[in-house]
């Protein structure tokens, strides 16, 4: 029997596994997290009495449905939580779990690896107390913890408003929501966002709820700095045509939307392309997620589309894998799925306008600002390396010269900023660009794992 390996147990991975589990294939679901849900449907740690119904509000119904489905699906497949897929080579996924290394061969590989926060560095972004938006949300949903008592939520992302509302529900104080995209851009994005009226309505609800609670919302501001000595104590921002503001806080949740986790797709041999709208590299796929080499990409790991689009694309990817394996399924209405996915993607295009990635900021930041926090590499060091290359710098060359992107995160967080600095220096900021190349392990691999390997 053909084996299909699904990486990730978030909305895309579980939806794919659900379709696969009803076909005559062997299904394995590999998930780095101890519990299914991904980031979108992250569930609290066992034994934690967190009132998810209250925390998620109108989002609770989808959460509950997902977890019921996931429990059922995971009981029917070879489900391996707490397992890191750290490499793909020769038709096998290489896994690390509970101190042991294993390889799992596949006939088809469904990558539902999700996304992580995208960050534009600002002065002070590495201070203690500054969290990514996703990180702040994960702490709340997983551990019931707030990142501080008085929190500034800033950057530009639909998550700004959701995270702020959830923090209020959990008893936190929101000092301000600072959105770096102008309100006019939000209006400009409305036609596209009407493609998913319910999601739009939820977003507007969140904004209204914040206003009702007296939370200050600033649109179109530039984030100048996170200030503090031992830890963050204030956010300095400049609203449009106004003097800079200093907003006191004891924690900051910061982010500019999401960046697809494409490392495994690259290692599996999939082609990547630069997507100008998302301003990031994504795996080259057809609408169903076929990426070649027996690989299928679903969810935010392919194109940032949110939880609902992830589930639809998971079903399409599973159907594509089954069809290519000769194990057809009638369970998936392909045409309806594709229509829905296209509609949701249009909505996401709107989001990319309404919540802009401020790539141009990379050109304005002071030389002293840290770009790569793992290796402590500053903007100035990166610019000096680019200057040595006569300005025609390629990101992997800058990495080699400066160590930017060589640390624990392997460029997952500094990569987008580095790409912008390089693009600005090459004077083609909007065009096709280089990206940091990937090698295994995609995340730190404990050496102890190898102890059982016969040398």
């Amino acid at each position, binding site marked *: 029997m053909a084996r299909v390996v699904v990486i990730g147990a978030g909305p895309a991975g579980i939806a794919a596994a659900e379709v696969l589990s009803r076909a005559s294939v062997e299904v394995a679901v590999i998930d780095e997290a101890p519990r299914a849900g991904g980031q979108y449907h992250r569930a609290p740690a066992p034994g934690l009495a967190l009132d998810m119904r209250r925390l998620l509000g109108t989002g609770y119904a989808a959460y509950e449905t997902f977890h019921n489905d996931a429990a059922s699906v995971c009981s029917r497949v070879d489900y391996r939580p707490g397992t890191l897929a*750290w*490499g793909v*080579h*020769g038709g096998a996924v*290489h896994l690390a779990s509970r101190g042991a*290394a294993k*390889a799992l061969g596949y006939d088809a590989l469904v990558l539902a690896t999700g996304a992580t926060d995208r960050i534009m560095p600002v002065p002070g972004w590495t201070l203690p107390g500054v969290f990514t938006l996703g990180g702040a949300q994960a702490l709340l949903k997983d551990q019931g913890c707030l990142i501080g008592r008085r929190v500034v939520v800033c950057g530009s992302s639909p998550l700004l408003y959701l995270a702020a509302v959830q923090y209020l529900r959990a008893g936190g104080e929101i000092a301000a929501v600072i959105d770096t995209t102008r309100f006019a851009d939000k209006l400009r994005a409305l036609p596209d966002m009407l493609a998913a009226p319910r999601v739009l309505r939820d977003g507007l609800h969140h904004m209204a709820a914040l206003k009702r609670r007296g939370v200050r919302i600033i649109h179109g501001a530039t984030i100048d700095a996170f200030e503090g000595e031992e830890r963050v104590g204030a956010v300095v921002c400049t609203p449009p045509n106004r003097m800079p503001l200093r907003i006191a806080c004891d924690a900051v949740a910061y982010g500019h939307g999401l960046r697809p986790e494409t490392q495994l797709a690259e*290692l599996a041999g999939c082609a990547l392309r630069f997507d100008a709208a998302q301003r990031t590299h994504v795996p080259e796929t057809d609408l169903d997620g076929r990426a070649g080499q027996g690989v299928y990409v679903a969810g935010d790991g392919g194109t940032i589309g949110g939880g609902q689009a992830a589930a639809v694309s998971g079903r399409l990817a599973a159907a594509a894998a089954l069809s290519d394996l000769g194990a057809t399924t009638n369970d998936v209405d392909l045409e309806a799925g594709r229509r829905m996915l296209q509609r949701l993607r249009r909505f996401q295009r709107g989001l990319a306008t309404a919540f802009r990635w401020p790539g141009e900021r990379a050109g304005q930041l002071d030389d002293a600002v840290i770009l790569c926090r793992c290796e402590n590499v500053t903007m100035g060091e990166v610019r000096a390396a680019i200057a*040595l290359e006569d300005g025609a710098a*390629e990101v992997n*060359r800058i990495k*080699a*010269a400066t160590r930017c992107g*060589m*640390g*624990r995160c*392997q460029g997952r967080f500094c990569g987008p900023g580095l790409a912008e600095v390089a693009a600005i220096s090459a004077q083609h900021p909007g065009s096709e660009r280089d990206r940091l190349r990937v*090698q*295994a*392990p995609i995340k*730190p*691999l*404990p*050496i*102890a*794992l*190898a*102890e*059982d*390997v*016969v*040398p």
Partner: protein
Amino acid sequence: MSAIDVDVAIVGGGLIGCMTAFALCKRGRSVVVLERGRVGGESSGVSFGSLRLQGQHAVELPLALRAHEIWETIEEELGESIQFARHGHVHLALNDEHRARLESNARHGRAHGMDITLLDREMTLRRWPFLSDKVVAASWSTRDAVVNPRLVAPAFARAARRLGATIHEGIEVARVEQGGGRFIVHGRMRDGSEPVISSAALVNAAGAWSDTLAAQFGETIPLFAAGPAELVTEPIPPFAAPVMHVVDGSILFRQTDRGNVIIAGHPRMKVDAETRRARVPPDKILINLARLVAIVPRMRAHAVIRSWTGIEGYVEDMMPVLGPSSTTPGLYHACAFSGHGLQMGPAAAVAIAELIADGATTMPIAPFDIRRFYATGQQRTLSLAEEFQADVLPPRDGLVR
């Protein structure tokens, strides 16, 4: 398009090509370096970074020692740091056969004036207590050093450029013609333009692709491509200064000044010189980590954050092809360094520069003549099983493995 006229055209902007350009510029020659990709972008930047003297092949050691003299003052000449550090090199023995090799290497090295100390197990473990008792002996050579290989080729390219060299990146050599006693090099740029370079001398420093260029002149370099498996850990507090190297090459590691531990382990892997993309297979990563933990148990507490490899050009006698062409006056080969290019590079570059500028060199390069491949009944004595995985070596007749 009118031709660019230079004294010397160098094909290949790896560390050998850039070092040769620098050496030629110092001798007043006009030079252009033609690099298909980026300077130092292939195997030059991906090596382990060891400038090892101890255990160098007997025939290579004289050139290696001359290279080392250059390395020891190179940062002053270049005007920038390439993270040169003279931390020494330790060969480790895991069995009696290894121990015999250490003793033989020490005799040979001392005969060339090297400072080598042999240590028994007790002395070894007292000196480096992080090693496990699987280590039965060690030999410590103090003059050996390390550099950061990623920085070397670009630094030499910049130094050469300051002295007037033209470093052309993104130019593929389509073909080379000869006429009027000159080489006419037809290049092809990514944008489709086709510059022509005319030179009196031509240097083949094309690394893993140097056999193709040699073939245009009716010469055979029996080259094959292979890659080293390199790993690096997160930074950890300093514990090991010298390079530690099990003498059969099965595992070697060094700690950088900032704390990361770089780990390599032979045999080298098969890589694809056509697609020019190479990765370390996960199984290889695990095997090398298992070997590391066996001799340095404390490493089990840490994590590896990245692997890499590159495409290096090898020949079966593991020696470079260095010197004049056997068919074409004015053509010089500086290639097939078989993994030893970083250490020997500066002396090889001076040898080529002297041959071109003076017609003769003081560098001991006689053993590396390309004509050695035409000798009949050639036999090899090195153990290639230690050096390469079985799938790397090309099938060939007449050579004893």
